[in-house]
């Protein structure tokens, strides 16, 4: 099946029961699969009037205790940013898949890119942390969509599945395991007296328990800066407490959240860092470099946000050079470069989008990083 179809199946396997969407190439297939599959499992699909509404609807559904999701591509992702911010500040678990295409604006609707990575990181206003995963195959689109739901439930925030047109439209074998072999996580639920429940009293775990509308807790939820009761609090202290906790719940749990794959890095002299579709190119280039006698290795980011800083710093301290491969003109590269400061020089292999990056172009930079003439 395709990456888009696998993403939808992953959502169902994770227990998703609500999908609100809006058609957009190259993500439409996710909505199409959900429209036929969700009612079969007792869920609900609705096609909204735009992506703003789709994002608002999944937040509303999430507050009734239902795992919810939407899927889109660049232009729709832009429209969702407003309510993604509401999801962050109200700590609403949900999943947003962005099947990236070339931009800016309408760009290249049918052709892939990885140029929304910084938008995923900073696209909504204000200061916050996010979680973004980047599957590199249809099989991984299945598993990482499940993981996105699990992380969203555990840490209570919208989690991004940052796939791309290449993965979304690629057909590969996807194995769907038996339901009992799939690990699913549900949000922490409140205990104790409902009339004294404080929806944003998080405690040391930094993630507050989440009731559903209809539970009898009579919660008030607002996009305004709020206190532990959920009430608007227009003070510097309330802003500090709320924003700091929203940031810390991700930053301080980065080790639990971050997944990467290391390939031939133990003795590597040149490290290639990549993710999503480009990691497949990077993998081929590393293999080719090894055949040519260059000790190259690959750090594949499955989690892009929070950024795996520790791993990149460690690599930068021991390799001759780090090559970032991505389909944009330097986004995740900027983070790799920041984390390599004081260590190995960093290089970018990127292009503005519309096609994959070739192993040859990566090979050329690997040679340069290894100190060889290309």
């Amino acid at each position, binding site marked *: 099946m395709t990456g888009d179809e696998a993403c939808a199946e992953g959502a169902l396997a994770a227990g998703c029961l*609500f999908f*609100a969407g809006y058609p957009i190439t190259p993500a439409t297939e996710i909505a199409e699969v959900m429209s036929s599959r969700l*009612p079969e499992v007792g869920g*609900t699909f*609705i096609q*909204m*009037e*735009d992506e*703003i*509404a*789709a994002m*608002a*609807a*999944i*937040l*509303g*559904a*999430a*507050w*009734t*205790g*239902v795992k*919810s999701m939407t899927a889109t591509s660049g232009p729709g992702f832009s429209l969702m940013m*407003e*309510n993604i*911010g*509401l999801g962050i500040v109200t700590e609403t678990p949900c999943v947003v898949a962005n099947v990236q295409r070339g931009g800016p604006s309408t760009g290249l609707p049918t052709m892939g890119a990885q140029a929304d990575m910084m938008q995923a990181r900073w696209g909504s206003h204000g200061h916050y942390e996010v979680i973004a995963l980047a599957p590199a195959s249809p099989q991984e689109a299945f598993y990482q969509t499940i993981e996105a739901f699990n992380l969203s439930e555990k840490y209570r925030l919208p989690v991004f599945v940052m796939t791309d047109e290449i993965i979304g439209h690629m057909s590969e074998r996807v194995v769907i395991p038996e339901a009992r072999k799939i690990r699913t996580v549900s949000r922490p639920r409140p205990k104790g007296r409902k009339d004294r429940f404080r929806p944003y009293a998080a405690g040391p775990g930094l993630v507050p328990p989440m009731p*559903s*509308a*209809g*539970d*009898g*807790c*009579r*919660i*008030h*939820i*607002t*996009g*305004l800066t709020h206190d532990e009761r959920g*009430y*608007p609090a227009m003070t510097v202290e309330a802003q500090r407490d709320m924003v700091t906790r929203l940031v810390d719940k991700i930053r301080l749990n980065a080790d639990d959240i971050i997944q990467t794959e290391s390939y031939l890095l133990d003795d590597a002299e040149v490290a290639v860092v990549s993710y999503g579709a480009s990691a497949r190119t990077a993998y081929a280039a590393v293999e080719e470099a090894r055949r040519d006698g260059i000790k190259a290795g690959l750090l594949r980011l499955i989690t892009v946000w929070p950024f795996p800083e520790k791993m990149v710093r460690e690599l930068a301290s021991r390799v001759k050079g780090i090559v970032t491969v991505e389909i944009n003109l330097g986004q995740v590269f900027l983070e790799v470069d920041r984390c390599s400061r004081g260590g190995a020089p960093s290089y970018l292999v990127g292009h503005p989008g519309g096609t994959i990056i070739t192993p040859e172009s990566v090979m050329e930079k690997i040679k340069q990083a290894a100190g060889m003439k290309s």
Partner: protein
Amino acid sequence: MSAKHGTDTLEHPLEDLIRSDRMPHIWCPGCGIGTAFSACLSAIKAAGLDPDKTVMVSGIGCSGRGAGYANLDSFHTTHGRAIPFATGVKLGNPELNVIVFSGDGDLFAIGGNHFIHAARRNMDLTVICVNNLNYGMTGGQVAATTPSLKRTTTTPSGNSETPFNLPLLAYAAGATHVSRWTILHTRDLTETMKHCILKKGFSFIEVLAPCPVNYGRRNKEGPLETLKTYRDKTIVKNGAPPAEVAIDFKKNIVLGTFVDDDRPSWLDSYNSIYRKEPARDKPA
């Protein structure tokens, strides 16, 4: 919210539905939102709804603060997005009664697209629009409802545009209940709200409310004058064709219930086509 009379403590009749720990509210003296809000809570009570199964969703603006004062599961969302958020709440748990309480700027300018589509779908929501003819929260700017020639901070020489006739818009989009009252007509308003809350499908109630501090001041209209207009210039015409109820403060303002139809709600249709089972939302 309790008044002391000697040793007796009188409880506010809506005490259990108000977040009294959030009082005082932000609404200005002479503002009509509080009256519309009280009518809404009274209607919830009169309808006999379980408050634990009743949800209020608001957008942004003065009226958008409504959700914050209701002792219900209440959501103060983003500007214009109360209706799609409420749609998610309703579809996530069809047993919940979902009321959208917001203002004219929120529901009909930035949120206009969501309004017409929810009406078209006959989503089972009660949408209450407090129409104070301007953007109060930001200091009185022109709205999609500001009458022509009226002054606001962004129409210093008068509004050169034409306002929406909200009942006509709601009717044309497919709302199965459309009515209009003013905050002076609290009994009719409360009765209508009760009817809408109990009615399945998309209900829309426009509530005219004064904004003396922003709109009134710039148009030389004192708070009492606005209420006198509501008393003297209004005419109740139930069943009036929505196309004929555009507001004209000089001639007359038509109030009443203009539309009260029945057709399957979104969930009724979805369940019958996709689930082959009877509707799960409000029992008849």
